[in-house]
C-alpha cells in the first residue's frame, strides 16, 4: 500500500500508530482481531519500521549498528548487507557514510527484522537510481513471500499492483476516517 498526501497530512503519524509507537487519538488498532496496544512487545515482532531518521550511531560500524537488530529478528546479516550492496562498507563507522549509504543501512535493518509488515516512511529518501532498484527488488521479494508493505512516498517507487491511499490535506484532516485500520494479512 502506498500512502501519499501533502506535507502535514499525517502520513508519518499514521505509520507510527500502525507500528504501535503512538496511540491513536480515537478508534482502535487491531491485528487479527486483537488490540495491538494490549501487548505492544508482541506486535513489535511483527513490524519493521523505517522512520525519517536512519537511527545509526556514528561511532559504530555498519555491522555493529545492525548487530542488535539481527539478533532481535534472527535475520541473516550477510544476506541483508548484500541485498543493500553494503558489503564493502560493512566495517566502516557510520559517521563516514553518505546520506544514501546511511539510508541503505537503515533499510538493511528492515530486512533483518524478519517481520511480515514493513512500515516505510519515505524509504527512497537520498537513494540513487541503483539503490532504488535494490529497494524495489527487496520490496518485491518481501511481497512474494506474503509480506505486507505500507510506505509513504513523494516519488514513484518501482512497485507493481500497489493500492494507493491518499490522505487529505491538513485543512480537512479532522474528517480523516483512517484512524481505524484493520489488517488481515
Amino acid at each position, binding site marked *: 500500500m502506498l500512502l501519499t498526501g501533502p506535507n502535514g497530512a499525517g502520513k508519518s503519524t499514521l505509520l507510527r500508530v500502525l507500528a504501535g509507537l*503512538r496511540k491513536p487519538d480515537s478508534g482502535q488498532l487491531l491485528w487479527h482481531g486483537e488490540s495491538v496496544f494490549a501487548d505492544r*512487545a508482541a506486535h*513489535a515482532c511483527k513490524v*519493521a519500521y523505517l*522512520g525519517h*531518521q536512519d537511527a545509526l550511531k556514528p*561511532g559504530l560500524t555498519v555491522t555493529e549498528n545492525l548487530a542488535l537488530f539481527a*539478533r*532481535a529478528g534472527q535475520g541473516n546479516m550477510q544476506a541483508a548487507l548484500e541485498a543493500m550492496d553494503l558489503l564493502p562498507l560493512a566495517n566502516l563507522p557510520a559517521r563516514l557514510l553518505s546520506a544514501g549509504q546511511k539510508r541503505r543501512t537503515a533499510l538493511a535493518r528492515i530486512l533483518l527484522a524478519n517481520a511480515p509488515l514493513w512500515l516505510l516512511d519515505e524509504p527512497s529518501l537520498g537513494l540513487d537510481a541503483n539503490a532504488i532498484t535494490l529497494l524495489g527488488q527487496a520490496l518485491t521479494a518481501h511481497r512474494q513471500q506474503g509480506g505486507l508493505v505500507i510506505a509513504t512516498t513523494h516519488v514513484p517507487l518501482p512497485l507493481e499492483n500497489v493500492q494507493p491511499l491518499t490522505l487529505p490535506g491538513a485543512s480537512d484532516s479532522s474528517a480523516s476516517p483512517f484512524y481505524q485500520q484493520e489488517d488481515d494479512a
Partner: protein
Amino acid sequence: MIGLFWAIVGRDLRLALRHGADTMGAILFFIVTATLFPLALGPSPELLRHMAPGIIWVCALLAALLPLDRLFGAELEDGSLDQLLLLGVPASLVVLAKITAHWLTTGIPLLLAAVPLATMLGLPASALPVLLTGLFLGSVVLSLIGGMGASIVLGARRGGVLLPLLTLPLATPALIFGAAAIDAASTGLPWQPDLELLAAFVAGALPLCPLAAGAGLRAAAE
C-alpha cells in the same frame, strides 16, 4: 529476551568505549570536585577526615548525574529510541539494560576513583570496605533513580535542568544512609543497619524504577 537484554548492554558499552571522553568526563568531575574541598576548607586533617564521607557521597551523586542527560536523549534525537522500542522486548527491559550499562560505565569507575579520594581526605583504612560497599549499593540506586528521571524528562525542552531537580531529592535516602554508615564505621559504631537500609532501597528501586522509566520512554516516543 535475556540475550537481547545483554545485546543492548553490550551495544551501550561499545558506544561508551568509542566515546571515551563522555565516560571519563563524569569520573574526572568526581575527582576534581572532591579535591576542591580541601582547598576551600583548609588542610586540617581532623576536619577533612570528619567530612570525607559526605564529600565523597555528594560528589559521586553529582558525577553520576552528568551522563544521564544523554542516556536516552541521544537515542531520542537520532531515532534509535523507536527502533529499541520495536525490538520486541518490554520497554522496561530496554530501560533496565540501559541503566545497567550506565552503572557499568559510571558507577563502577566512581567506585574505583573513590579509593584514592578517601585516602586523600584521610578516611581511616578500616572504613574503606564500608565506604565501597555503601557506594556499590548507592551507585545502583543512583543509576536506577537517575534512569527513571532521565526517561521522565525525555523530550522536555529544559530536560537537562529538570533532571537534577527531579533526581536529587529522590536520591537523598541513599545519601543519608551511605554517609551515615561510613561515619559509624570510622567512629567504631555498628554500621550494618545503615547498609541494610540502603540495600532495602536498592531492592525497592530495582523493580519499580524500570517500570516507571519504561512508561516514560513510551510517552516520549509518542
